[in-house]
């Protein structure tokens, strides 16, 4: 089989940063090829070069052995390669139909909206996407938006598709549906490049894999020739053991309790108790209400009914929850996790600022000292506590958010999707830190879409349509848990 896509000796610099340093990739026709590497390895940069959004400083891109078209000819690029970018390229203010046909609403002359909508419906139908072409894209959920992106990508008739971390925001069933689609495309002979931090997904869907590390290409292999351990060590550059889950016994004190909690449209009649020394998982498929519940537990949302108490103190908002001894990691670190322009030290110490000086004064020296401790404890890779968090890689930024949650030695910990978009190694140390905190006597709630994360939990509460339907003790199998989450089995 010949190479469908090839990139050779690509060098790309952003100012002093070298994002790609002589890296390359070659993908065989009809292959589903994985690209893996730690955060900041240069994966997305390669994507932007392969899709003609950025010009490499050095090196060349070939499609089926031919040189790539000039950058200005976007349509030529789009016929060759379609892409679902890591950052959404949906325009929320425009309708789904217009998003599908962005900048090609018409070949010339005025746009015929009715015809456009009909064409959009056709495209959506062809790719079996059940979305109304008329709604505003901004009103769609994450999965639906992604489907629109995929449908749009495919509608160009390209035979090469890139998917940059498409699964990072999807839950289990949605990922499964995506994979179904990818398999169907592969049957039709479409070549794909798939980027993910979930190595099990790579094993599930891909035939071959390339590993990038520190802006360089490290290795390319058939997936069957590269066992999990070897893949991880290729990514990290060192041998990394698989994560070992620890066991512990829960204490007696209740650190976090909710009674008769309801929030219209999100969840209903939830009771929950978390004791010190235990980790309670919260699982559920998309829209099951788990995040809404977790956000209520920390005071971000006010329930319509019921009370949450931390350490016996009823809470009414975030400040009162923090005061009662709660620490938490919010769902989306970019959205509500950290302030990108502020330093690590500052981000990590916001909730304990009052302890770093008197009368509202915050001593920069003690703040720094605390931050240095945290950096050491959580093994945050940084040049120092004064570096803005916005400059950190995803995993390290997430560690800062966790450091903030742990800053005040919390009695109760609520952690939502802590490992989203984080690479293997960072994932391990994040989970390790949560387990450490619990061993120190805290009680934790861990909300996640990832079964791997849930494995550290002592028990998992499964939610379905806004209700807690089952309390699953440790020792579940993937299949078992997923069945409950899907509402197949009670």
């Amino acid at each position, binding site marked *: 089989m010949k190479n469908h896509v090839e990139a050779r000796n690509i060098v790309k610099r952003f100012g002093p940063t070298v994002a790609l340093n002589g890296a390359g990739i070659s993908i065989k026709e009809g292959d589903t090829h994985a690209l893996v590497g730690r955060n900041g390895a240069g994966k997305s940069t390669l994507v932007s070069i392969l899709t003609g959004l950025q010009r490499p400083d050095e090196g060349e891109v070939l499609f089926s052995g031919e040189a790539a078209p000039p950058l200005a000819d976007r349509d030529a690029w789009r016929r060759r390669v379609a892409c679902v970018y890591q950052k959404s390229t949906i325009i*929320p203010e425009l309708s789904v139909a*217009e998003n599908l046909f*962005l*900048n090609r609403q018409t070949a010339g002359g005025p*746009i015929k909206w009715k015809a456009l*909508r009909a064409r959009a419906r056709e495209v959506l139908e062809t790719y079996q996407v059940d979305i109304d072409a008329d709604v505003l894209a901004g*009103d769609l959920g994450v999965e639906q938006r992604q489907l629109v992106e995929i449908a749009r990508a495919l509608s160009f008739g390209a035979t090469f598709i890139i998917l940059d971390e498409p699964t990072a925001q999807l839950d289990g069933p949605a990922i499964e549906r995506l994979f179904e689609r990818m398999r169907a495309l592969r049957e039709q002979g479409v070549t794909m490049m798939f980027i993910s931090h979930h190595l099990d997904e790579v094993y599930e869907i891909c035939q071959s894999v390339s590993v990038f590390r520190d802006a360089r290409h490290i290795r390319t292999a058939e997936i069957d020739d590269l066992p999990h351990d070897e893949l991880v060590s290729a990514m990290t550059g060192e041998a990394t053991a698989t994560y070992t889950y620890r066991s512990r016994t829960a204490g007696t004190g209740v650190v976090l309790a909710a009674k008769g909690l309801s929030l219209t449209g999100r969840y209903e009649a939830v009771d929950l108790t978390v004791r010190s020394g235990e980790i309670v998982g919260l699982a559920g498929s998309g829209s099951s209400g788990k995040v809404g519940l977790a956000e209520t537990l920390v005071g971000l949302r006010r329930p319509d009914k019921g009370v949450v108490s931390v350490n016996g103190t009823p809470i009414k908002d975030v400040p009162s929850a923090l005061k009662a001894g709660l620490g938490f990691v919010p769902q989306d670190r970019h959205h509500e996790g950290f302030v990108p322009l502020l330093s690590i030290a500052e981000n990590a110490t916001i909730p304990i600022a009052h302890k770093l000086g008197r009368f509202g004064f915050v001593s920069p020296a003690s703040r720094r000292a605390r931050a240095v401790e945290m950096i050491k404890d959580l093994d945050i890779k940084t040049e120092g506590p004064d570096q803005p968090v916005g400059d950190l890689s995803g995993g390290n930024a997430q560690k800062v958010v966790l450091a903030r949650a742990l800053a005040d030695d919390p009695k109760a910990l609520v952690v939502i999707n802590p490992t989203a978009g984080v690479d293997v190694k960072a994932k391990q140390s994040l989970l390790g830190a949560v387990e450490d905190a619990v061993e120190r006597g805290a009680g934790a709630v861990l909300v996640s879409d990832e079964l791997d994360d849930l494995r550290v939990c002592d028990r998992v509460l499964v939610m379905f349509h806004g209700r807690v339907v089952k309390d699953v003790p440790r020792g579940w199998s993937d299949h078992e848990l997923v069945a409950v989450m899907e509402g197949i089995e009670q």
Partner: protein
Amino acid sequence: MTTSTTPSAPTAVSAAGPRLRLTRFRDLTLVPVIVLLLVVGAFVDPVFLTPGNLTNVLQQQSALALVVLAEALILIAGKFDLSLESTVGMAPAITVLLIPAASGGMGLLAIPICLLIGAAIGAFNGFLILKFQLSAFVVTLAMLIVVHGLHLGLTGGKSLFELPESLLYLGSATWLGLPAAIWIAGVLFAVGIVTLGYFRVGRSLYAIGGNADAARAAGIRVERVVWTVFIIGGALAALAGILETGRLGGISANQGVGWIFMVFAAAVIGGVSMDGGKGTIFGALTGVLVIGLVENILTLKGVPGEWKQLVYGVIILVALMISRVAGGKAQD
């Protein structure tokens, strides 16, 4: 926004249904306000509803309307231009200095030259913002001062009233019984509505204002389009200057000064967002009309000068709240 999306398919996500319908009518938010003003005006003074008076209102607003059109385009594309108000006075003034009234045949060049000056200012703004990557707000704030400074400096602050005929024509002529200015503004708004509603280049403004990176990925030449919008904006402001010059018969050193506040008020109560990608040209037009009608009613009613500004401000605030409540979503 999106004049286009009609909810028809039964598959519509239930939650999206009502919201969709609201957004679709968002650019009609001010229509009831306009109806209300027409009723109030009729009670205030019998003259109000006469064709003569309504024509006057339209004519008086036509120059401002063109600047609102320009600003709406720029806002929809996600940028900002404060310097338009200075262009309104400066472009015709410089034109007069270049082509004095007595220059004979050259006089025909006055309009193109004036538009060119406006376009050049827009191009310079675009250059600083796109190539120098400066914030549009800040660049055009400085340019507002610079352009007006040029006007003051070159004219010595004096009003100009020996103007070439061609510069006076558009603002003072009557075509088919209506002032030419109304025709011009009307046609340009129609062009704007159609272009932004039905043409690729117009739709690309929404894409750029909504998500510039996504627009770029879709093959829209973002820089080129934005630059063009700035240039068109400058030219429209210059045209507004021409209409105003013709209407007033002279160019004072203050022509256009202070307009930008009204321009933003009109655009924003008309539903154009400061964040880009939202709003329609029709909505902006309703904003202009509301402002024009309010002014006219206050005048007919003879509100004392010292209270006029308060009444005016309160009405704008109320219109804002109405368009906020009717528009549904929070602004930021």
